């Protein structure tokens, strides 16, 4: 695979990566969201693999494989289980309507591009130029978490943030060290697990996973 093709592929993957994030913001069906997240996980894996290939690094390849298993495999699987267990959450309920969300996402993407300039400047390789994509996804994920009522969509928001950060890590530096990545991944998996259990408990105690119900604790 030539360098050009590789970088073209990388750009393509990054573009799609951002698009999937926007898609998550746009779609209402939870099942569609999970599919989009799976796709995003796969795209992230692609980016990791492409970069690993570029650096000819076996360790990076292993990290990429791990990422793939976790983000395109385990995490979506867990989400689907939540979705099955909590049947009332077919649709997300946005607090901000979809068009406004997209508009906000556009603004956040711009901010991501602006803010990522030091990262782009510092990155050694051409792939660094795609870093802003990751940052934009982080912000979009954050926005999603802040504006969706269902518990599961908030989990998806957290996962988007995580994907975005992983993308930044890969694009800007070729991936954080293996040990760190292992720890981070384990933490992520556990966090999702915890959230899954908590979603079940929410459903059991509140009878729904509507986060607006969570207003017992306030001042």
């Amino acid at each position, binding site marked *: 695979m030539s360098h050009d093709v590789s970088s073209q592929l990388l750009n393509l993957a990054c573009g799609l990566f951002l698009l999937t994030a926007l898609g998550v913001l746009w779609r209402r069906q939870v099942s569609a969201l999970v599919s989009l997240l799976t796709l995003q996980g796969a795209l992230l894996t692609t980016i990791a693999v492409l970069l690993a290939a570029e650096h000819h690094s076996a360790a990076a390849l292993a990290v990429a494989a791990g990422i793939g298993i976790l983000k395109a495999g385990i995490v979506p699987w867990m989400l689907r289980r939540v979705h099955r267990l909590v049947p009332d959450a077919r649709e997300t309920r946005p607090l901000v309507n979809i068009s406004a969300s997209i508009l906000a996402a556009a603004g956040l993407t711009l901010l991501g591009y602006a*803010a990522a*300039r*030091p*990262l782009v*400047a*510092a*990155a*050694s390789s051409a792939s660094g130029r795609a870093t802003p994509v990751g*940052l934009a996804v*982080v912000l979009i994920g*954050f926005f999603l*978490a802040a504006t969706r009522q269902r*518990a599961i969509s*908030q989990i998806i*928001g*957290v996962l988007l*943030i*995580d994907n975005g*950060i992983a993308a*930044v*890590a890969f694009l*800007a*530096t*070729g991936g*954080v*060290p*293996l*040990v*760190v990545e292992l*720890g*981070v991944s*384990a*933490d992520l998996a*556990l*966090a999702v697990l*915890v*959230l899954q259990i*908590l979603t079940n*408990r*929410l459903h059991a*105690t*509140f009878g729904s996973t509507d*986060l607006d119900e*969570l207003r*017992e*604790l306030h*001042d």
Partner: protein
Amino acid sequence: MRPTVALYAPAAAPFLAAAFAAVLAWRTAAWASVLAAAATLGSGIALAAHTAHGSTLTSGFLRADALTAYLLIAVGAVATIACWAGVSHLRDELTADATAVGAARRYLVLVQLFLGCMCLAVLADNLGLLWVAVEATTIVTAFLVGHRRTRESVEAAWKYVVLCSVGIAIAFLGTVCVYAAAVATGAHGVTALNWTYLHAHAAELDPDLIRLAAGLVLLGFGTKAGLAPMHSWLPDAHSQAPAPVSALMSGVLLSVAFYAILRYKTMTDIALGPDYTRTLLLIAALASLAVAALLLIAQRDYKRLLAYSSIEHMGLVALGTAVGGRLALASVLLHILGHGLAKAVAFCSAGKILHTVRSPHIDAVRGLASRTPGLAAHFGLAIAALLGMPPFALFSSELGIARAGWAGGLGWAVAAAFVLVLVAFTAVARHTAAMLLGEQPGSPSTGGEPASTAGGGQGWLPLAVGLAAAVALGIWLGPLQRILDAAALIAGGS
């Protein structure tokens, strides 16, 4: 003890105790947890003896200098009190059938894992590992917050996990930025995130990138440290967790998260100059103090009251850190320890009040000093300590922060901060007076029987020890002075 043993012991002992807790009877396991906490304290002291002269111990991913040792002492001391008080807490819960034996076991396991993660975070040489350990505390404590499985506690747990995960994720983004900057200086792999390396090469790091990283790290770890405006999870989680866990979370988890900020700051100060982080910290400090003061005024729940007081104290810690310099940082570190001890006692006695009165509302607690004088004395003294009254340690540390602030040209910020502290003081004093003073309410039906006065002497001893320590530290530091100076020197960036 060989130094290396002391390096591994604090992280290992709790995990070992956790393993024990999974198999032993709850009572034995509870005492084992006290032992583990004491071991942490002991190894902290051992490390302190070794590093007080400025030397550093490194082994694998772990590393200890005076700052680490000091933090370990703080963690160990607070954990010892919290675990010790936890014994009687668990017994009360079990006798009142509020907790099943299985839940008690799970509780003990999780507390030890929590403690272990905190020690690991403090000892980590690698910034990645530091992050992993801090995030792990969130995961471990999630179930501790939701321990009671009521609507409120599940809600609190959800908010806790979501808000902290998002926050800590931002810190990871910051860590990635630092990594990128380190890679740009030619480092590879794990080394690039090693504290030792980063500190040595701080001057070469790309300032623009570090500027971005500094903001993100502050935001991220600031979430865990309970700084406004990322503090929202804190009152919910602290008010719902079992009392000893609240004590640990409020007393040391916040400080451990802040420790990460301290570490990063020494590096960013070299790479970037102190102005940027100082501005951010000042904003966070004043925002935290303002939020705490405002929400304390009309507070209705005494555990939330304590939680907001934690936010207030983290605001002061942030203020001191923003000021910088040896005096300010020594004050900050003393503040961390003093606050940990006082908050542990306050939360543990609040737990006993909850157990006695069975209501978290301030309005439900009346005439405590005539009903249960011992409990009222401990709670009242802990509050006095938290309000920064002499001879408790927090008086000295707040005075030190204020002094350093004026001397450092941040007099306006100190003045503003202490006006906010005054508002908080008045609010807390008013609520506490309402709870403690006055005649016992006429009908005992409101609060039920004073349920067994929470277990006699054994229940009080850890709290009394905590208060005594807080007083002692307010009068005379003794041998702790050396390690405090050394730690302040390191936190100040040398």
